[in-house]
């Protein structure tokens, strides 16, 4: 699939070692022009390292990336003119105020002084930060600092906008506002890379999602395409009073509509078709075998199921 035809970012064997640790493992990936690309993975999967290489903050150990056809190794200055990033951890010097930070950022990005004053006021007002504009960075709450970090990208409005976990530390209303603003930015013509470990965020915002795990792309596609790759259209989870025996698992697997069974301590997760027909038979068998059913959950697959399917681990840790 190619939205609007063009390729905005192309990773070619992009690799990063920290000493002997392989953080990003020969990534090959194309991100299309004017799409919101969700980069999904747990902490330490290699998301931020990949983004820092694309922004030329980190130098790749091997391979390269092209941003709108420009090689990050050969012409990093031109790449940086097209890219803006909101870092995962706000990068604010403690003595500076939100206004000073954003005004200087606007000037560096090419605004005249009067334009910079205007755009900074607009963005700070939209982020509900105008009142706090004169506070120093060390006086701001975590959420406010994060807003200032994200505001930089909305001032810059770059051709390629990168958000690294943009709504971490942000309250619910703030999250929805930022999601709307990210969509607006895309609609105005920017390509967006959205790194996140929040499944819902990736699901509602992304045109396509790339699941990264241990430095490699484990799965790639639209959220719906990825969910459709899960064997069996439905997910059934049953919590029991004790871990299921091998015999019980074998009997469940023998059901014709069952595609896959996973044991997770006292929980059985089944990927299957026609759950409404299969469920009564499975419950009857479990009770006949002396198990007490504590909870039953039926649903469509989520991106977490996709993640589990492709990596063998859950992105969201079990409570």
């Amino acid at each position: 699939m190619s939205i609007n035809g063009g390729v905005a970012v192309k990773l070619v064997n992009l690799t990063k070692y920290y000493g002997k640790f392989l953080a990003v493992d020969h990534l090959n990936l194309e991100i299309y022009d004017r799409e919101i690309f969700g980069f999904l993975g747990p902490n330490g999967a290699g998301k931020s390292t990949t983004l820092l290489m694309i922004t030329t903050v980190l130098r790749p150990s091997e391979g390269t990336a092209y941003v709108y056809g420009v090689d990050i190794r050969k012409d990093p200055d031109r790449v940086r003119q097209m890219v803006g990033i909101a870092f995962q951890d706000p990068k604010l010097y403690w003595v500076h105020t939100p206004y000073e930070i954003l005004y200087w950022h606007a000037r560096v990005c090419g605004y005249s002084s009067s334009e910079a004053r205007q755009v900074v006021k607009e963005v700070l007002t939209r982020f509900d930060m105008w009142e706090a504009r004169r506070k120093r960075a060390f006086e701001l709450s975590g959420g406010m600092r994060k807003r200032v970090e994200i505001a930089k990208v909305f001032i810059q409005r770059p051709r390629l906008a990168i958000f690294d976990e943009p709504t971490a530390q942000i309250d619910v209303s703030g999250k929805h506002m930022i999601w709307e603003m990210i969509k607006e930015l895309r609609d105005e013509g920017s390509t967006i890379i959205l790194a996140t470990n929040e499944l819902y965020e990736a699901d509602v915002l992304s045109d396509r999602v790339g699941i990264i795990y241990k430095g490699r792309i484990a799965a790639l596609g639209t959220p719906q395409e990825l969910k459709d790759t899960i064997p069996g259209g439905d997910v059934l989870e049953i919590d029991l009073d004790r871990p299921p025996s091998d015999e019980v698992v074998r009997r469940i697997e023998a059901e014709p509509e069952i595609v896959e069974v996973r044991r997770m301590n006292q929980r059985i997760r089944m990927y299957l078709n026609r759950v409404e027909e299969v469920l009564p038979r499975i419950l009857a068998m479990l009770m006949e075998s002396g198990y007490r059913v504590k909870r039953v959950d039926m649903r469509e697959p989520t991106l977490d199921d996709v993640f589990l399917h492709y990596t063998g681990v859950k992105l969201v840790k079990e409570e």
Partner: protein
Amino acid sequence: MILRHLLLVVERDFRLLIEYRLFLIIRWLWFGIQIAIFGLAISQLVVLEGYINYYAAGIYVATLYSAAMFVAVDISEEAEHGVVDYLLSLPINRNILIIGRAIGGGLRSLAATAPPLVITLLYVGVRNPYTLISAVAGLALLSFGVAGLAITIVSLLKSGAKTDILLGALDAFVIRLSTVFYPREFMPEAYSAAAAVNPLTHASEVFRWALGLPYEGDPIFSMVMLLAFMVSMTSIGVYLYEKRMEGGGWTS
């Protein structure tokens, strides 16, 4: 665009001056006390005639050196707050970024030490306006060069704690192995040789020449040495900042 970015980077570093106002006031008080108490007392012990003036010129150069070295503290603090990554991600040519930081840090140091400079000029007097302009130019070269040295140190160490320790050690050696406090003729031979190539020696002597005080060496040669110091330190700083900062690995 290059000039615009250079000016913005210079302005950003220079503007930090306002943020350090309390620190500056303490520094100026320290300078005044150092001359009014220590300088006057030590000049009674020293056989060199008019040593208080000699001392005043030297202590100003030492103050300027310390102020310019403070750029290293800024950069290491910025790195701990992740600001270095932010600066590296901006649409600014990296060489312009570093040169701007060296110039901004150097100008800030000159501005931060302006009151002590004025006190020294008023106390000691000036030979003539031309020597004063030359001396300020020499002091500016020292200031930019030391800011470049600070960038070099912080880029090499990539650690706030190590930077603090090295700055303290360097301060002890660089100031004492120079003619900031005493002429070379009173130093052991090895110390005198080290002082001869020390930029603080050349800055002190140019400044003393401008003030009409006894000075050692040739002021023009000292200016050339200061220019070479500034160019070499800034160049090394530019090279190392990009090579070392890009790649993370910062420790507190």
